[in-house]
C-alpha cells in the first residue's frame, strides 16, 4: 500500500503537534493556509497598484477598475499557489475569475438598463401607457417641443400588439416545441427521425429573423393571397424563431431527469404519457420554464420579422386575424429611425426609450410568472 505516496500532506503531519509560544496548540490542518485577512489584504494592495498603474496612462475609472481586477486575480492566484500549493492556487484563480465574469456581465446589463431608465423614465406616464399614436403627427410633436408642453401619443397600441402576438406565438411554439423535445427524449431515442429533427432544430436556430418573417409572409400569401398582413402571420414568424429555443432547452432539461423516476412510475403501472406529464415534466419544470421565458424574451424584442408580417399601425387593434398591428419593438424602431417629426426628434426618442423600458418591464413580469409556475411544480427540497 505504499508504492505510490501521492497525498499532499502538510509537511509536519507525522510530527507531534507543536505548541505556539502562547501555549495554544497549533492546528496542523490550518497550517500552510493564508490567514483570513489575506484576501482583503491582496485586494487593498491591488487597489493601490491599480491606481498607480492607471495613472501612468492618464487616470480613468475604467482603466483603474481593469488594472485593479487583473492585479487582484493574478496576485491572489500567485500568492495562494506559493503558500497553499498549485491546487489551491488554481481554485483561487477559478473562483476569482468566476466572480469577475459575473461582475463583467453586470457591466453591459447595468449600462443598458441605466441608459433605458435614464432615457425612458421621463416618458412613462399615464398618457403614454393608455394612448395610442393614432392622430399624432409631426405637427403635434413640433408644437409640444416649441411650446414645451408634454409629449403626446403613447404605446398602448404597441403593448396590445406585443402581448397578442407574443401570446399567439407562445401558444404555437410551446406545445410544438415541448412535444418535439418529448419526442426526442422519450420516444425517438436515437432513431433516424429523432436525429434528423435534432439536427434541423439546430439549423433552425440560425435562421435570421427577417427570413422567418419573409417565410411566414410567403406562407400566408400562398394560403390567403398577397394582402395577408396581420398579427397571426407575425406570430407564425416568431414561432419559427422560438421553437428551436424551446426544443433545445426542454430537451436538455428532460434528458437530465433521472431514469429512476421514469422506472418508478412505469413499475407502478403508470402509462408512459402520464409518466411524462406527471413525473418527468414537473421534475424538469424549472429549467423548462427558464427556457420558455428565454425563448419568449428572445422573440418579444424582434423587429424585422414583425414589419414584414404585421405591418405597422398607429391605432389600437386587438384582432390578430385582421388589420395591421404594431408591437413595441416596431414602435421603438420607427420612433428612432424615422421619427414622427424629423425636425424635432426628441419626442420620438423619448417615446422609443419609454417603450423599451415598458418592454423590459413586461419581460420581467413574465419572468416572475414563469418562476412562480416553476416553483409550484418544481422538485421539493428540504424537510
Amino acid at each position, binding site marked *: 500500500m505504499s508504492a505510490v505516496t501521492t497525498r499532499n500532506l502538510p509537511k509536519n503531519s507525522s510530527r507531534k503537534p507543536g505548541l505556539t509560544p502562547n501555549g495554544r496548540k497549533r492546528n496542523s490542518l490550518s497550517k500552510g493556509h493564508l490567514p483570513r485577512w489575506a484576501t482583503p489584504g491582496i485586494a487593498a494592495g491591488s487597489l493601490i497598484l491599480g491606481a498607480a498603474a492607471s495613472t501612468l496612462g492618464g487616470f480613468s475609472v475604467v482603466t483603474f477598475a481593469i488594472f485593479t481586477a487583473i492585479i487582484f486575480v493574478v496576485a491572489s492566484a500567485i500568492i495562494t499557489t506559493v503558500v497553499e500549493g498549485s491546487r489551491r492556487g488554481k481554485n483561487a484563480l477559478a473562483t476569482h475569475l468566476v466572480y469577475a465574469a459575473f461582475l463583467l456581465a453586470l457591466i453591459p446589463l447595468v449600462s443598458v438598463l441605466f441608459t433605458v431608465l435614464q432615457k425612458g423614465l421621463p416618458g412613462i406616464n399615464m398618457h403614454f401607457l393608455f394612448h395610442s399614436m*393614432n*392622430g*399624432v*403627427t*409631426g*405637427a403635434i410633436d*413640433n408644437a409640444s417641443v416649441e411650446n414645451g408642453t408634454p409629449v403626446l401619443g403613447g404605446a398602448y397600441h404597441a403593448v396590445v400588439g406585443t402581448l397578442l402576438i407574443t401570446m399567439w406565438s407562445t401558444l404555437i411554439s410551446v406545445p410544438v416545441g415541448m412535444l418535439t423535445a418529448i419526442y426526442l427524449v422519450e420516444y425517438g431515442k436515437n432513431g433516424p427521425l429523432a436525429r434528423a429533427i435534432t439536427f434541423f432544430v439546430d439549423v433552425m436556430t440560425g435562421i435570421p429573423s427577417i427570413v422567418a418573417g419573409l417565410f411566414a409572409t410567403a406562407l400566408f*400569401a400562398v394560403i390567403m*393571397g*398577397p*394582402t*395577408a*398582413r*396581420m398579427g397571426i402571420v407575425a406570430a407564425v414568424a416568431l414561432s419559427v424563431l422560438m421553437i428551436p429555443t424551446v426544443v433545445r432547452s426542454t430537451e436538455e432539461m428532460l434528458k437530465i431527469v433521472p431514469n429512476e423516476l421514469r422506472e418508478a412510475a412505469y413499475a407502478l403501472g403508470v402509462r408512459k404519457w402520464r409518466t411524462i406529464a406527471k413525473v418527468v415534466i414537473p421534475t424538469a419544470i424549472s429549467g423548462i420554464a427558464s427556457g420558455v421565458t428565454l425563448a419568449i424574451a428572445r422573440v418579444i424584442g424582434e423587429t424585422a420579422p414583425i*414589419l*414584414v408580417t404585421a*405591418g*405597422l*399601425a*398607429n*391605432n389600437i387593434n386587438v384582432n390578430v386575424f*385582421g*388589420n*395591421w398591428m404594431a408591437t413595441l419593438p416596431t414602435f421603438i424602431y*420607427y420612433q*428612432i*429611425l*424615422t*421619427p*414622427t*417629426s*424629423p*425636425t424635432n*426628434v426628441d419626442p420620438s426618442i423619448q417615446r422609443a426609450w419609454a417603450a423599451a423600458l415598458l418592454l423590459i418591464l413586461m419581460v420581467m413580469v413574465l419572468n416572475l410568472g414563469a418562476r412562480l409556475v416553476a416553483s409550484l411544480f418544481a422538485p421539493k427540497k428540504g424537510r
Partner: protein
Amino acid sequence: GTDAATSGSAGGAVTGTLTGSGASSQKSAMEAWKAGFEAANAGTMVQYSPDGSGAGRKAFLAGGAQFAGSDAYLKDEEIESSKEVCGPDGAFNVPAYVSPIAVAFNLPGVETLNLDAATIAKIFKLEITKWNDPAIAATNEGVSLPDTAITVVHRNDESGTTENFVEYLAATAKDVWDYEVSGDWPKDLASENAKGTSGVVATTTATEGAITYADFSAVGDLGTVNVKVGDDFTKISADAAAKGVEAATPVKDRGALDMSLDLKRDTTESGSYPIILVSYHVFCSTYKDQATADLVKSFGEYVLSDAGQKEAATSAGNAPLSAKMSAAAIKSVEQITVAK
C-alpha cells in the same frame, strides 16, 4: 387584412381601409395625411407600411397594397406588369412628396459652406481629406477652415436618398463621380456609415469633421452646404427645392395619367436647389370596385391638395408641391375609375 372598402356611395362620404406600402421617406408626411384624411372622413382608415420603395412597389404589383409610395417612379416593365392588378391601363405615378437633400457637416463654428459639385464629389470620393483643402477654401473666403480630417458618413442601407444624391453627383460632376448610379453607396469607397437618415445624422453629429447627405428636415444643428447652381450658390430651402422640381421634365412615352419626372440636376437656374428627392404615389388607373376607387381617389386628392401638402410640410418639414404641379397631379388622380 381587410383591405377592401366596405361601403361608400359615389361622390359622397367614403369609408373603408386603405392599404399602402413603400418609401420610408414619406413616413412622417404619411402620418400627417393619414391623420388629416381620417379626421375629415369618418369611417376611413389608412394604413401605410414604410417598408421601403422597392418593397412597396413589389407589394403594390402583387396586389398586396392599393397604392405605393416610391422614391423612384415605376420603370416601364413595372408599368407593364402592373396591368395584372390594375387592368389594361396599368398603374401611374404622381409626385406627392418633395424634399431637399442637405449636404450636412459637423464643423464647430461653421454653419454654411459654399461648394461646387466637383468639390462635393471629391469629398465624398475621399479625394479631399482635410477641411482646409484649397478646393474648399477657394469658394469660402473668410471662413476659417480647420485642419480637421474629413469623415464621410454615408447610408449603409439601400436608399432613395443615396440614389438621388449620387444621381446629382453623376450628373453634375461626371469627371469626378464615375460610379454607377444606385441606391447603394459605392462599395469601394470605404468610410463611416450608418442605417437610415437618423443614423447618419446621429453619427455625423457625434463626429467632428464628419460630412453626410440627408433629408433636410432631419439635419438638425448640422451645418449645410450651399450648392453651386449656375454661378451662384443656392442655400437649401423648401422654396429652392420646389423650384428645382419646376425645372424637371415629364418622362416621355408614358400613359396619360402618369406624371413621372426627369429631374434636371444640372439646372443652372439660379435660386433652385438641385439635390432633391421626389417621392411618388403609385395608383392604379382602375380599381375593381367602386368603393375602393372612391377611397383611393379621395385620399389621393387630399394628399395632393393644398391642405394636404401644407399638413405634410408642417409635420415632416419637407417642401410642398408647387400649385401647378399639384393641380396637374390632382387631375390625374380624378381620372381613376372602376374596372369595367
